[in-house]
């Protein structure tokens, strides 16, 4: 199975690889997946006082599509408000990267990582976490 050009592009030049200070109150961290399943994503957001995501970083253990999905997610997150970020759907990622059906779980993981990072930020700042009702598994 060949990879789409967009997956290759993100894989070769991943955006926003790195680590934010997870102890900072303005940083939310989402760590999703499991080593046994072959995918682990860590996605971090930094949020300013206007609820805008000013920075996003990721590190991913996984296949090329998982790396590309998280790279794309960080690109989309920057500049969005937290509420806007919550509307990112895994199918948007599937479409943008032209992921084949067998790789859809990579996009699901990226969406989970975004929501989990937002919840971490909310809890740190005394807000109730959003219900992550949408379950793909």
């Amino acid at each position, binding site marked *: 199975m060949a990879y789409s050009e967009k997956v290759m592009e993100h894989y070769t030049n991943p955006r926003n*690889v790195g680590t934010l200070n997870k102890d900072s109150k303005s940083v939310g961290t989402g760590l999703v*997946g*499991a*080593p*046994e399943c*072959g*995918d682990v994503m860590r996605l971090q957001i930094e949020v300013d006082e206007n609820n805008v995501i000013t920075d996003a970083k990721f590190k991913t253990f996984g296949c090329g599509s998982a790396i590309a999905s998280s790279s794309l997610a960080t690109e989309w997150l920057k500049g969005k408000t937290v509420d806007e970020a919550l509307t990112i759907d895994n199918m948007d990622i599937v479409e943008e990267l032209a992921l084949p059906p067998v790789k859809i779980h990579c996009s699901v993981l990226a969406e*989970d990582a975004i929501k989990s990072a937002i919840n971490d930020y909310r809890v740190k700042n005394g807000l109730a976490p959003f219900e992550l009702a949408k379950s793909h598994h």
Partner: protein
Amino acid sequence: MELPIYLDNNATTPLDPRVLEAMLPYFTNKFGNAASRNHAFGWVAEEAVDYAREQVAKLIGCTEKEIIFTSGATEADNLGIKGVYEMYQDKGNHIITVTTEHKAVLDTCKHLEKLGANITYLKVKEDGLVDLQELEAAMTDQTILVTIMYGNNEIGVVQPVKEISAIAHKFGALFMTDATQAVGKIPVDVNADGIDIMAFSAHKMYGPKGVGALYVRRKNPRVKVTAQMDGGGHERGMRSGTLNVPGIVGLGKACELCRLEMDSEAQRLSGLRDKLESALTQLEESYVNGNVQHRLPHVANISFKYVEGEGLMMAMKDLAVSSGSACTSASLEPSYVLKSLGLSDDLAHSSIRFGLGRFTTEEEIDYAIENTKKAVNHLRDLSPLWEMFKEGIDLSKIEWAEH
């Protein structure tokens, strides 16, 4: 040096140009049907098949009459196992195999289970070798067949075939081996090894795809397998179907070349393999999978902890290798062979198989070493697990959300 570099010779090998040359006339002017008894076209084809049969027999130390040509090793495995089960049903219904076999053996056994066979799937030890005591303990008076592979396709481990066959024979059972990865690579002698039935294929030893053979012993004991395809009664009634003459000629030539060049080739390839392996295991947290003493000369299977195999292969884009990672298959399950060795799922996901071959050069291996090292380091820079490991976090203590 041309890119990409082919290091997946356990999947298939390129056709040796000398094999192609031998085959070519049998596609064109020597096109006869080897079963045509009444004219020169048939005789020429039959002669070519007979000669190939001799070439094959010589490589594995048997007589020509003991070779049944098939479409490949999968068919040969099916014919051997199903054929024995049908032929020896009144003797018993018990077959012993191991969990690290190729699917052609495992799925054939599963099929027979549905028909009433009793199959024992022996576990292997951590190094991939069969535990002989466990094998002996599993033998019963109902055991008709022990089928255990010669060399493993994923990790290259070579089983103690002589000892295994001796145990099978002690209990009056036949011994079969899928020797697809071993024939032509290391010395295989059906008499010295005590093999009664053996499957192998041309395209793993620089021959063409679509042709293989089943060795079926004719003396001490005389073994018979029930045909799995009905038709013209070719191959002593055990495998009907017009013979694939060019393919068979190719298999014969490939066997001859392997017989003549095996020793020097094995020595050269194990030297290159050891160079690759020792360079790559200098990377932190990298591990060789499988026994390193008893193995094929041309395979290295290495796990690079904290990076995922498919992602890694993408970074090794000039190298054609394979991985035990789940992502390379539709099932999302990592390699069952590596899991049989007791490897955790994450190490199985992190494995890369390098398969060297006749046309692999030292220059290519040097390139592969550099390319792989760079790729592993690049992927580890991207890996949250590597970062956590470096911070001293015990990953096994984290509650992962399995998905």
